């Protein structure tokens, strides 16, 4: 196998992982594609070191995450004024997708449709909620690490993640144990 073929195989192995990281953080396909390209251009320059390294996936993920966050922060100053005007919990009142059945939505949805639905709901969150949520759930960063990376307070990270989860719950029509119990109690009454 030539070097070019090896790199092509490497690219095919990891492109989904890198693209997913960039896509979930930026919520923009063309930006995610640009970031993925940049990650692999950097990887190509160091392919000799990366090839066969056990930490290659981690390296790619870290570069993708940092480039995505750099990209977001580059445009943050331009956008923050407008985005701060949007209520922090914006989107919570937006109606979710209406499915024919309400109670057993989970069962009626094919798994792939469900995943696409969740992915879309995640990407429709405002950046202030989506970015910390993605960093916590997909990048396994702790709250304090997220606060440091985003340059915001720990309290704001906690609030944004809570609001993000709450917005997702509404968009996905998620029923939590507590609600189910109260619903059953109402039915009994």
């Amino acid at each position, binding site marked *: 196998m030539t070097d070019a073929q090896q790199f092509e195989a490497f690219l*095919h192995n990891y492109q989904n992982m890198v693209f997913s990281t960039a896509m979930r953080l930026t919520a923009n396909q063309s930006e995610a594609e640009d970031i993925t*390209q940049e990650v692999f251009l950097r990887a*190509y320059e160091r392919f000799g070191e990366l090839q066969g390294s056990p930490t290659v996936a981690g390296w790619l993920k870290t570069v993708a995450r940092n480039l995505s966050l750099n990209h977001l922060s580059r445009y943050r100053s331009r956008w923050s004024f407008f985005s701060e005007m949007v209520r922090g919990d914006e989107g919570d009142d937006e109606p979710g*997708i209406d499915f024919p059945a309400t109670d057993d939505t989970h069962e009626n949805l094919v798994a792939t449709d469900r995943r696409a639905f969740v992915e879309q709901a995640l990407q429709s969150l405002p950046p202030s909620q989506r970015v910390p949520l993605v960093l916590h759930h997909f990048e396994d960063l702790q709250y304090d690490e997220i606060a440091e990376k985003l340059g915001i307070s720990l309290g704001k990270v906690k609030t944004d993640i809570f609001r993000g989860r709450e917005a*997702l719950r509404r968009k996905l029509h998620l029923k939590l*144990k507590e609600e189910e119990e109260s619903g059953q109690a109402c039915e009994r009454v």
Partner: protein
Amino acid sequence: MNPQYEKQLEAGVRRELDALGELPAPPALANRILAAIEKRATARWYQQSWSTWPLALRGAALTALLLAFGGLCFGAWLITQGATTPSWLANGYADASALWRALEVLANTAASLISRLGVGVLVIAAAVIFGAWATCIGLGTAYVRLAMRPAVN
């Protein structure tokens, strides 16, 4: 916030997000990346970033830049020391001085005009400028919120 509810919310959302897996990259992306690598690899050395230039060329470029900078500093020092300057440089300096004098006259005229207008006119002018600025921001915000709202379907 109810801690019990928060735990349940976290678990519920985590369950949904854990089931997501990786997003498939667009099929054309791999070819686009390979084409970009090919393009970069075939570019001439001077079209690539400085850090990828051959060591000798990097050294030569750095030396040339340092010499140019040193020459500029030395030239400026000579002028301040009153050294005889070449006629082309003296002419350029005279032109620059004339331009500076014209700008100075304009600035003085503007300053005297403003001082004669009075505070009331200045306040009104500032209010008009602020109003125009606020209108632009308001229209921009409306555009961002309405036109660029993420689609939910």
